[in-house]
């Protein structure tokens, strides 16, 4: 009853033509582009791997074999758990966490500095300089790191000429290039949320704390950080999700022995040719990311509404 009233109100307010246009656009987006594909992927991940003609046939039943495969490995394998895939999964999440912390540590001082200094041409230029790298293609950014960290890259050549090392260091194998590249790729998503929040912090609060004799770290710990918490958590959420789901940087910068979980998914879809298994792995990645982010939000008491501000 109430719903009908609401719908009537909606059409009275917007007019029939415009109202239905808005409704169709939103429904198309929410239902056809967001919700149904995710559900269909979930459904697909519980299906057997079948050739197309047999899909929908009698063999097309539900199964959990792909999830089983992720946890237990191929039937008849010599280990009781799928050590390889689970290891990659764990390492991906851990590395994404590490990259997030790295970005936070790097960005917080700059965000504070930019947020607290009053406008001015120099600051505007700094902000511009921050934005420019973000509009360069992700692939090209990873490529730049390969030029720098490669075996005959800039750093190795410089250290060789200076005599610091006698043999080139393999940064790619040591994953230094990968972490640097990932941290670089999403650094702006960390800095801008924090910057936006700190910009609105009343400077008098800091002055007051200083007058009361608080040391600088105490000011940050008790005044600035609690205030900037929505920005920090929103930045951390985005960096974590994007690094865990990154594909380009690991493909280009990852060492030969270290895979990223997304690369395994990619392999199942392309060379592996087992779509349902790839879909199952993607579901696991999605669910794991959501759980981690939600629990972090619960831990730091921030709402999802704060994200994207």
């Amino acid at each position, binding site marked *: 009853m109430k719903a009908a009233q609401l719908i009537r109100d909606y059409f009275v307010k*917007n*007019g029939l*033509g*415009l109202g239905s*246009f*808005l409704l169709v*656009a*939103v429904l198309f*987006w*929410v239902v056809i*582009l*967001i919700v149904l*594909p*995710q559900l269909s*992927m979930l459904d697909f991940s519980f299906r057997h791997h079948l050739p*197309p003609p047999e*899909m*929908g046939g009698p063999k097309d039943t539900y199964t959990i074999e792909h999830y089983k495969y992720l946890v237990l490995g191929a039937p008849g394998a010599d280990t009781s758990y799928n050590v390889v895939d689970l290891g990659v999964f764990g390492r991906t999440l851990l590395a994404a966490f590490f990259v997030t912390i790295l970005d936070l540590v*790097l960005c917080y*001082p*700059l965000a504070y500095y930019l947020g607290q200094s009053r406008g001015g*041409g120099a600051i*505007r*230029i*700094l902000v*511009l*300089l921050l*934005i420019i*790298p973000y*509009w360069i*293609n*992700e*692939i*090209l*950014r990873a*490529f*730049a*790191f*390969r*030029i*720098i960290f490669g075996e005959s*890259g*800039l750093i190795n*050549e410089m250290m060789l000429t200076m005599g610091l090392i006698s043999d080139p260091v393999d940064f790619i194998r040591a994953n230094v290039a990968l972490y640097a590249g990932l941290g*670089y790729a999403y650094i702006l998503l960390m800095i801008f949320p924090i910057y936006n929040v700190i910009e609105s912090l009343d400077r008098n609060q800091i002055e007051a704390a200083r007058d009361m004799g608080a040391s600088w770290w105490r000011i940050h710990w008790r005044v600035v950080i609690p205030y900037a918490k929505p920005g920090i958590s929103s930045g951390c959420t*985005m960096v974590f*999700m994007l690094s*865990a*789901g990154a*594909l*380009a940087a690991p*493909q*280009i910068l990852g060492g030969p022995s270290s895979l990223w979980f997304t690369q395994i998914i990619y392999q199942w879809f392309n060379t592996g040719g087992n779509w349902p298994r*790839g879909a199952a792995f*993607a579901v696991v*990645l*999605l669910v794991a990311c959501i759980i981690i*982010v939600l629990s972090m939000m619960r831990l730091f008491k921030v709402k*999802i509404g704060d*994200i994207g501000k």
Partner: protein
Amino acid sequence: MKTNSLLLKVLLGAYLVVFFGYLLGPLIVMSFTAFNSPSFPKLTPWECLTFEWFDVLANDERILNGIENSIIIGIGTVILSVIMGLAGALMLTQIWPKLRATYYTIVIAPILIPGVVLGISTLVFWDRISIMLGMSTGGILHNGIFLTILGQSTFIASYCMLVFIARLQRFDTGLTEAALDLGATHVQAFRKILLPFMKPAIGSAAVLAFLASFENYNTTTFTFGKYPTLTIELAQKVRYGINPSISALAFIIIVLTVIGALAHEIYRRRQQLALANGAPVSAVAGSFQLPKILSGNPAAIILILLTLGGASTIWFAQSYSPDSCKMDVREQKRLIQEERIKAIREKRQLNIQQKQHQGPDVFGGSKSTAPATQSPGKGAFGNVFDPGNLDKSAPAPKPEKPVTSPGKGAFGDVFSPQNLDKAAPKED
């Protein structure tokens, strides 16, 4: 206290340098490698200034084709996501309050969902639909452009929506109501009141959407089908073999981005100036007052310098030819290689000498003085037939017979130390 603040300033400066070095250094290094001549992109050793990689880039069919696909997909994505984003933002202001939080979570989620997952779900969903409808695999639902536009719009629409929400917060709904009271239809009110108000936001959302679509990799890599975008082509090139033409492309993109950003900054400055003076923007934008704009507007100065630099570079590129430099480098490399070969040959000869030294020693002590006296003479011989001397003489006939340049290797073989050593005892 004073030293303390000085220390703080130094620390801050150092931190800023490190931070921006991290942020901009890779891009600068990459840009410079576009002008270095080695076929693997690197900064050191610097060999020759060259523009050939831009030519290579301009003749790369796959890159050009990728740019074309990217533009088509970008336009489609812009249209779809601006419409959906605007509708989504308007819906947020009207939706039943109890549903609002859920609705917001759903439409903001695509930003947080990994792009890989979005690509997979789009691919799987439309694949199933086409099976359900009994369509063949070549149909529209498997078309790379169609799938990529849908997959990208899923999350790009969320970005657009955020832009629109920010603008809508300053919209006075009283204006629409007044228009409706005065007899305008809903569509008229929408077109004449809301759309003009949203125009700047629509512009920036469109630019944002296009750029996001242009550089997207994670989603596109699952959906592109037979229509690889520029990013896909780049990724394949970077993964399976690099050459500096990619640096050249990066350089072009970086320059375009910088110019775009600076132009935007100048525009915003003018707008602010206009607002401060109380005049409409068009008044300031229309009158050409260069000195005033330049004073206190670093962005404009940088932009002008950049344009000048770009123009002079292009002029320079037309008149400059790196061929002579490249010849030099090749010559140098050849010399270095010869040095190395020489070193190796000497080493080998030394080894042979040592072996011959040891040879007679095995036969007993009575003759032991003979080889000892002989060996200096042999050494002198060796010097005459030293490969280094040969190499010096070898280039001499070379100019006369440039065709037989591979013959140099043959020459070298004839005069190679082994052969010489075989010949030397006979002459003895």
